[in-house]
């Protein structure tokens, strides 16, 4: 008999529906890191991202009996996460109206990176990416999150976002192009100038 870790989503969901709690654990372990990354890039705070993922997983486990097996489980899961993130973002926006958000220090405290400089750089990159994604239209940003954080196929992105396959591809493509333009603005105008390190081929 194959280990639950190696099972595909479909059989795991079926086992979970049959009352197998271990199958739920496997599903949670499988998707939680990607969900947290995507939620963090959307919400910008580790605590909020953790909360959103927790709520998402709880919702999945509670509503698993409503899952339609004709569709991909990942699509269903990521749709719930995006909805949860939207709700959390609205709550955050309401709270931020009265007070500025404090800098997120949680990940710095528990970081396991070896060097403080590297940790700082990693934080800067993550923050830079989150800031750039926040400037994009929400549909494009969500498409990119699903593509890179969720590792979803374009068909799954289309299902999750409720759009056509070509629209999903277009959103990913235009989103990436816009991000690149913000990262390396000279590429748009000055071809002859040497690009910075990140932009070198």
């Amino acid at each position, binding site marked *: 008999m194959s280990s639950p870790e190696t099972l595909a989503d479909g059989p795991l969901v079926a086992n979970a529906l049959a009352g197998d709690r271990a199958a739920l654990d496997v599903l949670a372990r499988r998707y939680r*890191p990607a969900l*947290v*990354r995507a939620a*963090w*890039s959307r919400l910008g705070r*580790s605590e909020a991202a*953790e909360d959103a993922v927790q709520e998402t997983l709880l919702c999945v486990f509670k509503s698993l009996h409503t899952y339609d097996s004709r569709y991909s489980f990942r699509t269903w899961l990521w749709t719930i996460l995006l909805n949860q993130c939207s709700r959390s973002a609205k709550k955050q926006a309401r709270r931020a109206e009265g007070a500025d958000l404090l800098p997120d220090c*949680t*990940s*710095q*405290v*528990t*970081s*396991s*990176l070896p060097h403080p400089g*590297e*940790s700082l*750089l*990693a*934080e800067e*990159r*993550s923050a*830079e*990416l989150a800031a*750039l994604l926040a400037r994009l239209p929400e549909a494009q940003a969500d498409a*990119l999150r699903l*593509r*890179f*954080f969720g*590792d979803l196929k*374009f068909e799954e992105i289309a299902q999750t976002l409720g759009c056509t396959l070509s629209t999903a*591809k277009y959103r*990913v*493509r235009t*989103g*990436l*192009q816009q*991000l*690149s333009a913000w*990262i*390396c603005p000279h*590429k748009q105008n000055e071809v002859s100038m040497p690009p910075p390190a*990140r*932009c070198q*081929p």
Partner: protein
Amino acid sequence: MKATVTCDDVFDVLTRGPFPTGSADDEAVELHLAACHDCRQLAEALRPAVELFHEAIEERADALPAYRGRLADIANLSLPLPPRVYWDEEQVQDLPARRPMFAQHRWGRISPESAASLVRFASAALLGMALCLLVWTCSSIVGREPAQWQLADWQSSTELANYSSETLKLGPRTTLALAALRLPAACGEADSLPVGASQEVDQACCTKCHSAAHPGRDCSLVWSAGCESCHLAGPPMRLATQHVSIRQAACRVCHDG
């Protein structure tokens, strides 16, 4: 991946991760990129954003807080549970009814929240009373002059006779009262009595001469504490209005009649 790839396949590869990926399909993608100008341009255009994504993903995965201890293994252990005690229905009915802790108290009819509020109120009231008592005691002591602290407590003339007048320190109010007395010139010269209001008297003026140890030159009835027995024991108003009626005021009996 098939040997010949389409633009869609290349787009899929380029948006999946940094290229080259290190897999066997990289060669086919490179061949396509060499031949397709649009895909090559797109690859160059997307590269900064794709790299940023993957740097953030890799580093963020390390930076995110995560539990890396042993408790996850321990949680999976199936530990034997303690044996359960089963009760018959009759045994359960014989058990005394479980009542809350406050139900056994005299305040049984009061809810625990109300009882706690009452206790808090009583504590606050007791504390307030103690503070009031402390403030009243302090104010009654501080409000008096130093001489009053002692003279007010002396009730008998014997105690007054034993009083050492050198220890007195007169305040300005007492000095004014003493200066207003019509004293013989000898008293003022001999003892440097306060003639003006600004003088500060270090000692009990009259008692310096007219004490029990040194009987007065002209006075037949002088108490040891002299002026201070009246002029320091009472409030200022009493000094002004009751001079005549106070027979204990030794100086006044002789000099102010």
